[in-house]
């Protein structure tokens, strides 16, 4: 029997990890991830979760210990934010290159400097090309469901890649939401114990993490890239199986109100809820705007996105990260290349919102729809609400 209760999303995330029966957790506290690791420590301390919690001395060591634990065959979980994600940056590539099915809840937060503990996507956008599968969540239910699915995806024989479950700092991590928790019995039947293909054990010695000379490096990276690209089929399969079992259905790309409009927003994470509010309000004025939500960001769901885009005339890409000197925001650039490669006739606009925890108001999206926000001629993107 599943239970539904009102609960802080961070606590719910740690309960999801418990339901997944994680065996090793190595984590280092950082706001706004702290409630997740505090609750996990508590679950381990109380004996409610049979796992080892390694109180590492840094995030670099957190991800390193996760690599060791996962390589030795344990189901491994961690969580971090912002500076922590940057400190483990080096090891993120190694976890994916070594095909270790670690799951991490990344509580998205702004990067210093100036120091900001509040939410945006500058941390994850700086880590987007680390070879991890990346899921984004809009609400607490998605966080719980995604963490459970993430292990099944990561550990699948055809995948064997680490998975990040992204949730927005504070605006999602610290809110209390009604969340339905599946029963342990149902999770156990959905997610059987991890049986590694290879693990570090004296009875069957293996060498992991050998180096690649020029004549083999390209092939090794190509094989990894193919695994990441092909993981989409497994991800879709796992989402379907989850839906069949638990009645909550997910897709790599989800749409809202896109049927009768040639305009849509594209966005990642909890901002989608603000946009949906704006769309409802627009509807009350008789205006129709759609929303395309990227649930899956890596591997980039090209086909699914294309079919959502193909009958659109105007798209507004909403992002929570500064382009840092790039032509546009990182999400925009990928969508633009997809549109260009498929010769779609779509006007693309790029808006930056919600940096460092700045409130994101539904009115912004109404103004975007009504073309009340104008572009500077020297930039392709607009930072909404910035005081110049």
């Amino acid at each position, binding site marked *: 029997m599943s239970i539904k209760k009102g609960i802080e999303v961070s606590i719910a995330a740690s309960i999801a990890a418990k339901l997944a029966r994680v065996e090793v957790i190595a984590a280092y506290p950082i706001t706004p991830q702290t409630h997740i690791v505090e609750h996990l420590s508590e679950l381990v301390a109380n004996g409610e979760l049979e796992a*080892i919690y390694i109180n590492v001395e840094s995030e670099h060591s957190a991800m390193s210990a996760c690599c060791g634990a996962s390589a030795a065959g344990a189901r491994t979980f961690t969580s971090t934010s912002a500076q922590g994600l940057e400190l483990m940056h080096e*090891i993120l590539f190694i976890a994916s290159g070594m095909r270790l099915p670690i799951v991490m809840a990344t509580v998205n937060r702004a990067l210093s400097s100036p120091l900001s503990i509040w939410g945006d996507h500058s941390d994850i956008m700086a880590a987007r090309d680390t070879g991890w599968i990346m899921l984004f969540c809009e609400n607490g239910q998605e966080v719980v469901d995604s963490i459970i699915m993430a292990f099944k995806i990561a550990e699948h024989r055809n995948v064997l890649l680490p998975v990040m479950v992204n949730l927005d700092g504070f605006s999602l991590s610290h809110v209390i939401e009604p969340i339905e928790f599946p029963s342990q019995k149902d999770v156990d039947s959905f997610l059987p114990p991890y049986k590694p293909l290879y693990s570090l*054990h004296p009875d069957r010695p293996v060498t992991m993490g050998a180096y690649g000379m020029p004549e*083999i490096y390209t092939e090794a990276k190509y094989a990894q890239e193919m695994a990441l690209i092909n993981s989409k089929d497994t991800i879709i399969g796992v989402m379907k199986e989850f839906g069949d079992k638990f009645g909550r259905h997910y897709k790599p790309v989800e749409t809202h109100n896109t049927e009768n409009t040639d305009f849509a927003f594209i966005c990642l994470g909890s901002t989608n809820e603000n946009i949906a509010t704006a769309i409802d309000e627009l509807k009350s004025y008789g205006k129709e705007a759609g929303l395309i939500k990227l649930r899956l960001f890596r591997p980039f769901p090209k086909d699914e996105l294309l079919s959502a885009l193909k009958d659109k005339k105007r798209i507004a890409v909403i992002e929570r990260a500064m382009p840092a000197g790039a032509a546009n925001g990182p999400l925009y650039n990928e969508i633009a290349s997809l549109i260009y490669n498929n010769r779609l006739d779509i006007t693309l606009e790029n808006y930056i919102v919600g940096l460092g925890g700045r409130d994101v108001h539904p009115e912004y999206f109404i103004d975007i729809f009504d073309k009340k926000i104008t572009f500077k001629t020297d930039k392709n993107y607009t930072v909404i609400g910035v005081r110049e």
Partner: protein
Amino acid sequence: MRLKGLELYTDHPEAEFVASGHRACQGCAEILALRMALKVFGKDTIMAMATGCMEIISTPLPTTNWEIPWIHVAFENAAAVASGIESAIRILQEKKKIERKDIHVIAVAGDGGTSDIGMQALSGALERGHKFTYICLDNEAYMNTGIQRSSSTPYGAMTTTSPPGKKSIGQSTWKKDMAKIAAAHNIPYVATACPSYPFDLFSKIKKARSVNGPSYIHILSVCPTGWRIPADLAIEYGKLAVRTGVFPLYEVEDSRYKITYSPEPLRPVQDYLKGQGRFRHLKDEDIELIQKRITAQWEELKYLCSLK
């Protein structure tokens, strides 16, 4: 008739866990030390290795020289990786997912991977009390990247980033005392060793493996390439380091210091320094300064050993 002292290691496994065909230089004492250590650690060992010479000489994909489970993740994190492995093995055994047996986890890194970039991860792992052995293979510089100085490079030594010149003597700082730093964590066992003294090394590895908690072994590993000495003198220079007091052999068991091999009366450091290309530029007064420091260090060690 059995030779005195041999009973210590007559029961150590004959087996080799380093396959031949590795790419270490002739006379490399890092690989020698590791080969000796693995004989004692035995088959039920999992090794986490840092980036460095030993990693590079052993594992070009898709080949390996390791006959035990081995993992390399990065340069500065061998201790953290080992923490993860040790925890995983423990919980998997508790949950009866793998058979319960005495599997020992070791982390191996060079002096750079230990006393510089890996120090934080090492300190964390020692403090947390994982049951594992950390081995520092100290060849006194970053050899893998071309003989750059580390904090373990001795005073006066020439390296590619501490070149002697008009305004420099070469390495201008004194060698960081990593074994003492490890001992300051109050872990059950810390020792120094050198493959020029194999019996001493064997018995220390044996102790390190048997204690219930972290152990740390700091092994002086002569590097003919980086020290600019003939390859056939590697063992000899290891002995000289010990006999001059430059590298004393001792252990710290439950915070008690004990010299395991006393070379007294110490030979002059000059005997050790001369003949090494990396010290060739040193003047008599430089050597005198080094001699003073080494003598003082030896006296201090004896004092620590006298404490009950």
